[in-house]
């Protein structure tokens, strides 16, 4: 399986080890996410160097070269693809069979330093029995060596940040799934880590809590923190991440900004763009004169045109020209397959995880 390593640096696609920091990802295509805040850590934050992990005979991940910088990076892949193994490796909970991992320049051999800077949230319901939400967050802060006063202050702040103040004195066992996710998140952020490794953090959240949590992640990213988030719900990733890493069968099959990943695939899988306009036939005639357009199909209601192009940039320039001429009245331009779900399907050739 070939690996598409994508983004501005095309050398990566030729199998060159990716060493380029991706700090720019925070301010990438969607500048709203960063809101004018420049990430403070210019260096790569999590680095995998030729990392393999085998569980006996079973492959976890194989020969991973990956560099993750500040901002939100999403790990996407079906169950058993190696996402959790990568998360556990990044969090220092697993040692690689081969290769090396560094997080903020620290190796797992320096757990005292490393774990102070990492916040980890499992995908499972991980709660010692019988604890209240407050105890849960407070205990784990104390296990970081925080003095009692600091632990109480930080626990209060984390619980406030995830909106669990009222429920904090209740036992975790009585929480809903969404509340459990939030209190887990509170323990992950409570000690103010610079790197957050969050395994399926949006699972079980209702839409409102999900939106609030996504906002929280963006706020963390805007502070220059590194968020490594796994998910199998692709539209969630589209909305959330600055950068995606697609994992399949223990291999990283693509990485980069979603738009960049899609562009790299354009030669094999022309980009589909839906144009809503008043004269789709006329527009079709115009676009067919361009060599990068491979297909143009009229929409059923004759108010739109679906175009497949190998060069999105040239196509958008053409559209600008057509619009400028005033012959065709263009109402909307909608990319039809530059989301993670389509990319995933094109790369892996399977039904995307979490898609319905």
């Amino acid at each position, binding site marked *: 399986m070939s690996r598409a390593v994508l983004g501005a640096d095309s050398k990566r696609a030729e199998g060159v080890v990716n060493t380029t920091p991706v700090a720019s990802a925070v301010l990438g295509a969607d500048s709203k996410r960063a809101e*004018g*805040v*420049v*990430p*403070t*850590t210019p260096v790569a934050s999590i680095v995998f160097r030729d990392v393999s992990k085998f*569980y*006996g005979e*079973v492959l*976890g991940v194989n020969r991973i070269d990956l560099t993750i910088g500040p901002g939100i990076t999403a790990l996407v892949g079906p169950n058993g693809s190696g996402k959790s193994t990568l998360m*556990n490796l990044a*969090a*220092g*909970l*697993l040692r690689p069979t081969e290769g090396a991992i560094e997080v903020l320049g620290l190796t797992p051999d320096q*757990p*005292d330093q490393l*774990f*102070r*800077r*990492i916040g*980890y949230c*499992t995908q*499972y*319901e*991980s*709660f*010692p*029995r*019988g604890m209240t939400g407050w*105890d849960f967050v407070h*205990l*784990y802060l*104390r*296990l*970081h*060596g*925080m*003095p009692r006063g*600091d632990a109480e202050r*930080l626990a209060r702040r984390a619980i406030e940040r995830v909106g669990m103040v009222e429920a904090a004195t209740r036992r975790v066992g009585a929480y809903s799934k969404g509340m459990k996710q939030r209190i887990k998140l509170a*323990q992950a952020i409570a*000690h*103010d*880590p*610079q790197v957050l490794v969050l395994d399926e953090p949006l699972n079980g959240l209702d839409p409102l809590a999900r939106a609030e949590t996504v906002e929280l992640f963006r706020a963390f990213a*805007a*502070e*220059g*923190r590194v968020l490594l988030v796994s998910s199998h719900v692709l539209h969630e990733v589209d909305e959330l991440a600055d950068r995606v890493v697609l994992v399949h069968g223990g291999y990283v099959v693509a990485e980069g900004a979603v738009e960049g990943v899609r562009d790299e695939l354009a030669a094999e899988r022309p980009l589909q763009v839906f144009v809503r306009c008043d004269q789709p036939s006329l527009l079709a005639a115009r676009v067919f004169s361009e060599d990068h357009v491979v297909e143009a199909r009229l929409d059923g209601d004759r108010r739109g045109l679906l175009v497949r192009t190998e060069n999105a940039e040239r196509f958008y320039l053409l559209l600008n020209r057509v619009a400028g001429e005033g012959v065709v009245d263009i109402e909307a331009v909608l990319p039809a397959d530059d989301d993670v779900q389509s990319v995933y399907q094109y790369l892996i050739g399977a039904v995307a995880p979490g898609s319905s």
Partner: protein
Amino acid sequence: MPVHDRRYRGFTGERRSPRGLFWTLARYGLAEVFSKRLLLVLFVIACLPVVIYATLIYLANNLDVLALLGIQNADMNKLATNLSGTLFFWFVVGQANLAFLFASFAGPSLVAPDLTHGAMPLYLSRPLTRCDYILGKLAILGTLLSAITWVPGLLLVGLQSALAGGGWLVEHARIPIGILLGSLAWIVLLSLSALAISAWIRWRPLATGALFVIFVLGGAFGTAINQTLDTRWGQLLMLTEQMRTIWFDLFGVGRIFGQMNDKGDLPVAACWIAIAAFSALAALLLHRRIRAHEVVS
């Protein structure tokens, strides 16, 4: 907020040394143990003999108090002249049995719930190693069982020494050593066994049963082996017998009750080695189970 103020700033306060973090785990564990009524009652029951022994020691050293009350008791007179290793040996044996009872109920709930609830990755994503985790759990049982065995034992020795005065302690120096070493060996064996069982058997009643099987039915197996093979080495399976041999030796009281078989007891050194080997095996089993992730098979 100005842009330059919004960047990441981590916690800059002081932190305790990671070496002592296991005590945090132990403190939370102790609080949980005492939140259970059954364990609290068991603990109080286990402390009652201390009061009885303290009263006995006081009366044995103050026979005039009994006389004032008009009580003439020959046994007390006998006890007063025999406040030696035997009394403390029986104290240790009695408390060891109560410690076993307490550990068999408290131990199984110390590790299994963490494994069942998947709490291990969160514990171990702190500056807390697997050994620290085990040490923290061990400290819970260690503290509780110490409070039942050697701590009150040494207090009783202190009481007797204070009441008897004049070199009693010097004359009976092996008693406090026996109490301390004998109790610690039992506590380590018991705690590691209980935690290992808790790590491998998640259903608490079954784990408690397993502890009884190892410590009680193990004796029956050992006896069967001794009789079938006409040997004494079956005692290697009899952990309680080995401990008794060690206590006899530590207190220098000789075997008070009958031999296990006519070939005699195992050498004391063999008993120490067997207890150490069994404890090491339990520690190894426990360590294998404490992982931050599930191993795919």
